[in-house]
């Protein structure tokens, strides 16, 4: 591999890492604050992509579709939290795994009832289509744009977590519910909002990925498992960890494919095992 | 002064930026009741947690007889003959009293990696568990599920479980916490009985009880040792009076 190609592969890894971060951050947020394992997060990602496709069909504009889609996902997340998730707070992780597993089944079938099992696509907006030359090849503009958006979201989260009341609660962690309540905060409302935000974030990832990946049934399954790997590596509940984990996984996956294609799909799992061997709570996880 | 049974040397524990136990060196002599007192947040429970291995120290050393406890895990420390009770009742709520004590008693078998013979058939374990129940006064309640008992009884069970491991040294973390007068009196009597053939390290807020049972007292404030001495010395110590007994007590409890 010559140096230019190497750099481009690094870019590929980082770029992939950004898209993973977007999905993983919502997952880690939900766990960090609420202590809920949400297996349906991948299904939210898929639903987001389908909503984007649907709204794009109506509005003919990706921007409008996404702007309208985010509140829909937020409301959708809110409804799910009230109807299903809210009974799980005092229950064992086991039941969270099961219930959200049940949600996956339901959401997948709902998707099929609403949109059928065809696959669709959302075109890349004119201004962002095309590619720019880079070394011996060209790089798609939209991918760079997605990275940029992810960076903005990451920066936004950094600010929110560092400067706001919500962020303070995230830093305090779910383990210290008494403290949060002592601050006079209605915890059940916070949970509902956080869950909805997580759902919106997952949906947003699906929407912004839709032009890249096309929209198809089961598109959330793969991303779910890999997002879990990301947040376990980074430390569950830590947004900073999710960022670092996403970058590591993105790079490991990219270079695994190029350098050890025979074992490429095992590379990230091996990475995860190694990290956990060194730090069982993940890179930035709290010791419980 | 005889060789101490347990001693800490420049022991340290910090959580992030917060130093909970700061450069603590204490000798605990055999066959004595050694009480540790101090206001809330003085680091007493953290100290117990370090001694029992529930928490690893950040710095310093702990020695028990010839053993260096510093790197040891809680189970290994228990196996050396140090038992502890918890300030917050920490029992198996769904188990009966006998089952609660059974596990402690069973831990003194060479190993519990035994898969076929029913646990019930191990008579020596049963004997140990029943003795522990008798000591803590719960023989009658042997088959009662722990969660169905009164708070005071659960506190007694807390001590019983520890006794089932037949420890040589007892770490008692506020055994009287939340108890009524009658119940307190019973537990104080129990501690006195245990003190005859055990070494006891006691954390307690109830000063009457402390001065009634303790041979030696250590006063801790802000993670540090303020003074150590017999009850008379401590009572007479002006620093202690200033820092704790005099003005601080109402706030502390």
């Amino acid at each position, binding site marked *: *591999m*010559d140096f230019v*190609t190497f750099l*481009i*592969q690094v870019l*590929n*890894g980082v*770029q*992939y890492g950004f898209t993973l971060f977007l999905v993983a951050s919502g997952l880690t947020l939900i766990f960090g604050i609420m202590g809920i394992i949400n297996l349906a997060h991948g299904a939210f990602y898929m639903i987001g992509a389908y909503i984007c496709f649907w709204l794009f069909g109506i509005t003919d504009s990706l921007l409008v579709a996404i702007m309208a889609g985010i509140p829909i996902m937020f409301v959708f997340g809110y409804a799910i939290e009230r109807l299903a998730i809210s009974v799980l707070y005092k229950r064992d992780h086991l039941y969270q795994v099961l219930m959200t597993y049940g949600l996956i089944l339901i959401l*997948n*079938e709902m998707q*099929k009832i609403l949109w*059928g*099992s*065809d*696959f*669709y*696509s959302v*075109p*890349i907006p004119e201004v962002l*289509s095309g*590619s720019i*030359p880079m070394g*011996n*090849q*060209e*790089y*798609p503009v*939209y*991918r760079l744009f997605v990275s940029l958006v992810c960076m903005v979201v990451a920066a936004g989260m950094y600010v929110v977590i560092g400067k706001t009341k919500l962020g303070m609660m995230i830093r305090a962690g779910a383990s210290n519910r008494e403290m949060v309540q002592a601050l006079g905060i209605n915890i059940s409302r916070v949970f509902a909002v956080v869950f909805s935000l997580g759902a919106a974030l997952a949906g947003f990832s699906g929407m912004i990925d839709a*032009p*890249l*990946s*096309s*929209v*198809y*049934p*089961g*598109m959330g399954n*793969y991303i779910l498992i890999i997002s879990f790997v990301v947040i376990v590596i980074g430390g569950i509940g830590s947004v900073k960890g999710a960022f670092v984990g996403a970058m590591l996984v993105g790079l490991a*996956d*990219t*270079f695994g*494919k*190029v350098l050890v*294609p025979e074992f*490429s*799909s095992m590379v990230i799992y091996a990475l995860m095992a190694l990290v956990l061997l060194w730090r069982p709570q993940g890179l930035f996880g709290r010791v419980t | 002064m005889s060789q101490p049974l347990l001693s800490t040397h420049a022991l340290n524990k910090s959580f992030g930026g917060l130093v909970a136990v700061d450069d603590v060196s204490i000798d605990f002599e055999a066959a004595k009741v050694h009480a540790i007192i101090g206001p809330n947040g003085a680091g007493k429970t953290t100290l117990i947690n370090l001694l029992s291995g529930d928490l690893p120290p950040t710095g310093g050393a702990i020695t028990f007889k010839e053993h260096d406890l510093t790197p040891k895990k809680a189970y290994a420390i228990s196996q050396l003959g140090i038992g502890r009770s918890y300030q917050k009742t920490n029992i198996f709520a769904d188990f009966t009293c006998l089952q609660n004590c059974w596990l402690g008693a069973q831990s003194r078998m060479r190993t519990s990696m035994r898969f076929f013979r029913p646990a019930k058939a191990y008579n020596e374990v049963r004997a140990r568990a029943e003795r522990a129940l008798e000591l803590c006064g719960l023989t009658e309640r042997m088959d009662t599920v722990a969660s169905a008992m009164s708070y005071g009884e659960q506190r007694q069970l807390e001590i019983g479980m520890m006794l089932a491991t037949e420890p040589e040294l007892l770490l008692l973390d506020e055994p009287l916490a939340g108890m009524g007068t009658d119940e307190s009196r019973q537990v104080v009597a129990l501690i006195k009985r245990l003190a005859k053939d055990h070494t006891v390290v006691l954390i307690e807020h109830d000063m009457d009880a402390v001065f009634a049972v303790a041979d030696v007292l250590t006063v801790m404030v802000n993670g540090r040792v303020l003074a150590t001495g017999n009850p008379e010395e401590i009572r007479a110590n002006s620093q202690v009076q200033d820092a704790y007994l005099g003005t601080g007590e109402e706030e502390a409890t």
Partner: protein
Amino acid sequence: MSKNNKSRRHFIAGAAATTGLVAASSFIPSRFAIGAMAPIKVGILLPYSGTYAMLGNSITNAMKMRIEQAGGRMGGRPIDYVAVDSEMSVPKAPQNTNKLIQKEKVDFLVGPVHSGIAAAMAKIMGQRKTPIMIVPNAGSNAVTGPLCAPNIFRTSFSNWQPAYPGGVLMGKEGHKTCVTISWKYGAGIQMMAAGRDGFATTGGKSVKDILLPFPNVEFQAHLSEIAALKPDCVFAFFSGGGATKFLKDYEAAGLKDKIPLYGPGFLTEGVEKAAGSAADGIKTTLHYASNLDNQANHKFRADYEAAFGASANVFSVQGYDTGSLLLQAAAAVGGDVEATADVINVMETSKVPDSPRGPWAMSKAHNPIQNIYLRQVADGQQKLLGIAAEALEDPAAGCKMA
């Protein structure tokens, strides 16, 4: 569904009563008598849930439509369909197959889509003489290769068939080197190998074979690799959502205009709209093209659209031809499908002249001998360019019957 079951039970009861009667009279050979009265049982094991439900539905719909058009009877006997959702699950395949064979006692077993399930079914079929299995999709070479058996037929294709001519085509169009890329699973590996072999017959050489774990759709690293390798062309096999994403990524990486892309027809089948301009101009080879100009195809497409409100696709063609094959065989034995050996004899030598994909015939290994067409996507539509390979027969390596 439950209604179906009731009527099924009803038929069985009727048949049983008839059996008693006939046995008592004992004038007519009982086998034929039952055959004349009782419905023929057609078991279907296809995916109806999950990602591949579309395939299962297309096949089932078209097959039933074909039989319905012929009067809804086979060899004069009514038909009783028993459909089981394969869930695309190999672990459940033995049980599902046994359910149809042992419990439902079907005469014909139609399925599956997934080649792992096909292998599991073929294994069970290989150990018994009845029923007769018809594969309406799964392309695994093994089914009509090492696993071939007298009672296993296929109406679709072998993975070798649509891929090999694609490789030859690349050579014919003057390319010397290529990169092959696919998912690392049965169909992907077999198609990649066939394409490479076809390319090799023209003196072409694959400089790198890239296999991604199924169903990973993160292609970017490999596209950068391809850009760095600069081959003359790329031979790719993906399908469904993965195919759409690959085409779009390939275009976005600026490769589409520099390094022409080829592949088996599944690469662009059904994704024309979703892929948009990314699919435009890509040449593929397949045993069907939607704008094939023959009477059967026009009628089939019109009927299908009218009946189901959706365009017919290659899978529905395969289902349709499965129906044709069943009708032919049942008619030839006068409805006596219990005479398995006779049915097999008929099917073995059968020709399907009125298929939407053009006429085809059954090979000795029980796989269609069929034309492979050269197609190109233009303006979101498949355009037929011609025949890439005429009456192509799978080499059926490892089949003892061939």
